[in-house]
């Protein structure tokens, strides 16, 4: 391989056809994955100055453009305003979107004590079936501790409702203690809002020790992480997420499509694992 003596690039014969074939092949495979997105958002994003928010019709279109017909949907107001404001906005958006939208609610939660006005998971009617509950311990100023969250976690575990947590909102020893205290509670570690790469030693060790911990893949983007996690921890513990509309869904989809894994395991990660989890939710 040499360095060229002149600037400029010329198209080489046949390359466009190869690029076209690679693009088309990936698009077709993505359709066959039957994606169920665990990490889609409505409203104005917080902390991403260049990102633009989406309402339900726009989000649905963005999801469908990459082959996702189902999604767990959250609302940014749950973080940037208050849990209750986010839940109200989410209920309103899902109501307008209609039952056939393929969107299921991921509510924002708070500790059950001291009791606060709803709508909140475990404290009042939410209006739509629950796909999961997310907590923001750092942003909402409570420790991720059993003595604070025991009531809510017991309520979730009884109903098999998954608990979602951004890794930037937790500390690892506390999460480990919580996962051990509630072994029947599915806990999904989310890889936002910064890449989880620098916490991967803690993440993988936690998952090894706690079978009820799963990980969402929108930014599980280190080299060969999917194959490693599937082999060492089990493909059933990985959930595809896009982080739309902040992030590009093709990044995590591409990692699934090209992973050195059997097609069946790719399908599990892409959507079947989340379908299985939600099928177990009671009430």
């Amino acid at each position, binding site marked *: 391989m040499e360095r060229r003596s002149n600037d400029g690039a010329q198209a080489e014969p046949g390359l466009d056809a*190869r690029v076209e074939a690679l693009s088309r092949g990936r698009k077709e495979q993505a359709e066959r994955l039957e994606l169920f997105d665990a990490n889609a958002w409505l409203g104005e994003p917080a902390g991403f100055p260049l990102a633009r928010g989406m309402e339900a019709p726009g989000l649905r279109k963005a999801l469908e453009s990459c082959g996702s017909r189902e999604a767990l949907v959250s609302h940014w107001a749950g973080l940037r305003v208050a849990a209750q404001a986010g839940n109200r906005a989410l209920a309103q958006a899902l109501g307008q979107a209609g039952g056939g939208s393929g969107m299921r609610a991921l509510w924002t939660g708070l500790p059950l004590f001291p009791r606060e006005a709803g709508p909140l998971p475990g404290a009042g009617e939410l209006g739509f079936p629950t796909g999961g509950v997310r907590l923001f311990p750092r942003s909402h100023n409570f420790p991720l501790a059993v003595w604070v969250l025991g009531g809510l976690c017991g309520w979730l575990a009884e109903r098999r409702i998954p608990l979602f947590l951004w890794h930037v909102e937790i500390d690892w020893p506390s999460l480990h203690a919580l996962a051990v205290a509630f072994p029947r509670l599915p806990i999904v570690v989310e890889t936002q809002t910064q*890449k989880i790469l620098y916490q*991967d030693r803690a993440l993988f060790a936690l998952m090894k020790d706690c079978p009820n911990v799963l990980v969402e893949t929108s930014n599980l983007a280190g080299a060969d992480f999917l194959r490693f996690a599937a082999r060492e921890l089990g493909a059933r513990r990985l959930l595809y997420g896009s982080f739309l509309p902040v992030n590009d869904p*093709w990044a995590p989809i591409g990692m699934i499509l090209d992973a050195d894994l059997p097609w069946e395991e790719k399908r599990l990660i892409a959507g079947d694992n989340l379908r299985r989890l939600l099928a177990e939710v009671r009430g």
Partner: protein
Amino acid sequence: MSGPFIVDAHAHTGAMGLFFSPESEAPELLARMDGLDIQCCVNAGAWTYLLQGGREGLETLRREHEASRGRILYLGVFDPRRGREALRELEEACRRPGLAGVKIHPTFHRTPAEAPGYEALWRFAEEHDLTVLAHSWSSSEHNPAQALSLPGRFEAWVRRHPAVRLVLAHAGGRGDGRADAVRLAREHPNVYLDLAGDIFCYRLVETLSAQVPANKLLFGSDFPWLDPRANLSRILLADIPTPTKRRILRDNALEAYKLNLSS
């Protein structure tokens, strides 16, 4: 051509101190390239070499280049805090095959990109017709040192050394650095942007393609920080014309690094 044809303009090799990686060594990178139609990559250095520089690090990169049969090209690293020594090492590297340019990292090296200590490097790059790959990012609450690598800080060098090709790694990042990176790529024929890293912003490839000249965007993986499969699919599946994808995946890197790849 029928073999691998893609150029990964930004990768690394070697174990990383900051995180666990299931694969990070040069043979693993090579195997990954084989599986993804990547013909050639530009290795921007191992973690220890990025931080410490030194002859030994350069020698490792050269050996990896040879073992890859020329498919893994490499960059020397210039840390202005050890400027003279670094230039001596780079001078030696220029006499051997595989050197594709020089990496600078104002954030890691705790030196603002516009600091006078970089002057010698820009002169060296001009004299030896070398491409400069510069870490670039946006202001960050989590990592204030990223401000040392804001794209606008490179502008004086770009004006003073128009013959040196500058690739702004990560295209200025996810925030306020982006606009300046785009502006530099639009205003200066010698400024390019690579897409390496987790700048996974929604429709970024489409947006940047519309904002900068067609020869300015480069595919980069940032292996092993990031899996090449993430950014590769983003480009292949972007809503842009096929010739634009081909340019990003290959032609623009050939131009920016002056590579002559046989198929």
